[in-house]
């Protein structure tokens, strides 16, 4: 195939002799992770450049390098052919780069006009004052450029998501942005709003603005993209033209053939009693009509894109979020309580955010290990530090948690050891059904293998596991079967035979 990465795009507007911005050999390393590895591609004026890849492929890191939130370890950036450095968000703004994140950075109680010119207010005649009229007229002009008729005096919190997004875009344009980076901008929009946004993007494109567009929706990628760059494991796989590729081919490139250190379990699974049975679970967190079950001895995956509702399902099952319909059954007994009741019933939630939700960081390793088992260990409510310490010591030894002492604050431990403390907490509480939400996030390869070995050990001994993971290879290698979520619903179930990355992506992506 012709490498189109270096070609000027078709239909390029304005001066196409040099790209607006060119990335050459961009690398970014974090402890234990190579987030970006030798990524190069040019961004031409007047093109919509699609950026595709699995979760963790490096899209977010690349976005952060472009907007100056991260500084690349290696590699060069060329702006209009001249070598430049982006060391801060100020630098990025100087070169006309603006990023529209999924989380907007607007001030809810200020007006549309005030938000657009926030921090860059025009001075009034009297020193120290602000020229409100000029802010309003300029805001109106910028919004006019993209054909929007939003009320410039409306407080931003009264606007819908789509309109807030337009304000963000207007804010970027008011700073003379020539490169707009958009992170899944349609994820919260209705069909009509999406149409409207696309119209606006085409107008910007005609005006010579380059748009770098991150999307998980196949239809968009092919509808809008002038070129498509695929990332995988921090590396650029290819830049292709939409005419010369197919959705299947794209998925193939995103998944690749990965060599994995994770040992797949033997095929002889002895599935026992139903540990978890969920029927029609629906809740205000955006999940609807969830049906799934997990048997003792099984590891069942729950996958789908970030934001598809996986964590919300886990929380609803555990009783941490309100539900409006459906039922949850633990070990053949109906469950309607909160996390305290779930804990008593032998259910464990290992949350996605270890530090924010799984551990009391300022407390000791020992305190964290016994915290969910206090009622079980001390039924008379009299706490014996000696007994607690003995239990904690045993768990530290059993899970090989690397800490100098059970009295050490848990915050000084490594990510992998912290995760073991969370698991130890639930082993101490005698849990039999474990819900793991991204169990290996931020953990190095060696510790990952240990966590999986622990999980295998658990199911060998009759526990049941529901595992959420964004790493498809983990789901494929570790799970006995998996459910795939898409936009708050279960899009499908994959048996062991059909459990592979292509099928997961097919079910999890949007094909409207």
């Amino acid at each position: 195939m012709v490498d189109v990465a270096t070609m000027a795009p078709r239909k390029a507007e304005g001066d196409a002799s040099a790209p607006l911005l060119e990335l050459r050999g961009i690398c970014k390393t974090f402890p234990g992770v190579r987030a970006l590895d030798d990524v190069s591609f040019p961004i031409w004026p007047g093109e919509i450049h699609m950026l595709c890849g699995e979760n963790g492929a490096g899209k977010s890191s690349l976005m952060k390098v472009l907007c100056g939130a991260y500084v690349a370890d290696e590699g060069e950036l060329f702006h209009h052919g001249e070598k430049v450095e982006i060391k801060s968000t100020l630098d990025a703004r100087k070169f006309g780069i603006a990023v529209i994140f999924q989380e907007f950075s607007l001030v809810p109680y200020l007006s549309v006009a005030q938000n657009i010119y926030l921090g860059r207010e025009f001075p009034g005649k009297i020193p120290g004052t602000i020229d409100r009229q000029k802010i309003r007229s300029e805001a109106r002009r910028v919004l006019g450029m993209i054909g929007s008729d939003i009320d410039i005096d409306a407080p931003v919190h009264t606007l819908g998501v789509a309109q807030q997004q337009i304000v963000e875009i207007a804010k970027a344009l008011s700073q003379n942005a020539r490169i707009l980076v958009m992170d899944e901008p349609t994820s919260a929009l209705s069909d009509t709003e999406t149409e409207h946004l696309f119209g606006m993007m085409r107008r910007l494109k005609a005006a010579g603005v380059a748009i770098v567009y991150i999307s998980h929706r196949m239809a968009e990628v092919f509808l809008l993209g002038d070129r498509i760059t695929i990332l995988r494991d921090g590396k650029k796989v290819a830049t292709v033209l939409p005419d010369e590729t197919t959705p299947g081919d794209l998925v193939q490139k995103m998944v690749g053939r990965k060599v994995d250190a994770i040992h797949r379990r033997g095929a002889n699974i002895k599935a026992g009693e139903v540990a978890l049975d969920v029927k029609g679970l629906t809740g205000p967190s955006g999940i609807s009509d969830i049906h799934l079950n997990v048997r003792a001895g099984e590891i069942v995956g729950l996958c789908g894109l970030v934001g598809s509702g996986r964590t919300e399902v886990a929380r609803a099952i555990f009783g941490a979020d309100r539900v409006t319909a459906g039922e949850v059954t633990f070990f053949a007994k109906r469950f309607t309580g909160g996390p305290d009741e779930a804990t008593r019933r032998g259910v464990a939630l290992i949350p996605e955010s270890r530090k924010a939700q799984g551990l009391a960081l300022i407390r000791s390793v020992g305190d964290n290990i016994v915290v969910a088992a206090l009622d079980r260990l001390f039924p008379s409510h009299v706490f014996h530090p000696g007994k607690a310490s003995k239990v904690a010591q045993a768990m530290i030894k059993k899970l090989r948690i690397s800490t100098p002492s059970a009295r050490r604050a848990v915050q000084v431990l490594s990510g992998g050891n912290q995760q073991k403390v969370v698991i130890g907490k639930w082993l101490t509480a005698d849990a039999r059904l474990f819900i793991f939400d991204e169990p290996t996030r931020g953990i190095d390869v060696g510790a990952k293998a240990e966590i999986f070995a622990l999980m295998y050990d658990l199911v060998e001994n009759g526990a049941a596991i529901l595992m959420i993971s964004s790493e498809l290879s983990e789901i494929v290698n570790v799970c006995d079967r998996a459910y795939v979520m898409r936009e708050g619903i279960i899009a499908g179930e994959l048996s062991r035979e059909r459990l592979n990355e292509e099928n997961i992506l097919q079910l999890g992506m949007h094909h409207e």
Partner: protein
Amino acid sequence: MSQIDAAAPKLKLTLSRDVTDVAYRLLAVALICVTLSLVSDAFLTANNLLNVLRQASLVFFMASGLTLVILTGKIDLSIGATVGLSACVAATMIKSTGSPWLGAAAAIGVGSIVGLGNGLMVTKLRIPSFIATYGMLWVAQGATYYYMSGQSVYGFPAGFRALGSGYLLGIPIPIYLMVAFLAIGYFFTKRTTYGQQIYAIGANTVAARLSGIPVNSRLNLVFVLSGAMAGLASLIYLARLNSAEGDIGETLTLPTIAAVVIGGTSLFGGVGSLFGTFIGGLILTLILNGMNLLNLNANWQPLVTGLIVLLAVWLDMKTRSKTDSN
């Protein structure tokens, strides 16, 4: 600095943080005592020292309940107003029935009800504790004014007054009570599962909830205990003053918070101890006592209290950042 150099002292400090926190404070108490005995002949007399402890005991009763609330990461600003309301209800109860026991039950009952109100506002209505208890401050204060309608109640039976001003074996009775409650409180916080859960909630409320701790019922518990301890404090206050007026508790809240903070309990929750609060109250009382002995103008007292609070918090942050940073 090499890695080993950096790690060694860190480990030592982390292991003994609770102990060092208290040790620093005992050192401060010793320093203040030595200084005061050098500058004033009246300080090192049995009479004065017992007086200091009696004063400290009043602070301790209020501050102990508050410590539990602050350990969970919440705050109770209604303490003083609760003391006032409990004292006034107890005072009229004792006057009308002649029974100190009924009065005691009323004071602790009123305090508990106010505390339950605070707890429910925080757990059921999800009002931040700062606002909920601030509102309760005015409600309880207003209820007290309405209840007393400008009157004062005074002259209680000698048996009741002994609670505040009596002696047993030459030592004021409130001091016995303080020692008893310090022991009970220590047991509750360090040797019961409830105490462990209170620390866990303060260290990370979300994690505590997701670890199966019934967070709301524990929060209700600490607010009720805070109110009940305020009720108990009001009895001793009443017995000592031998009279009750509508404004009796008005100035008590802020010094109580000062005692907790000087005692090393973090306003963010999860760190601190009742013993620290006892010492915090003692430091506060000693300084005020010293100022009295030296005939310093009483108008300086709030300023000095404020400076001590700031100094204590600053020193805590300094020692803790040393253990946490690297």
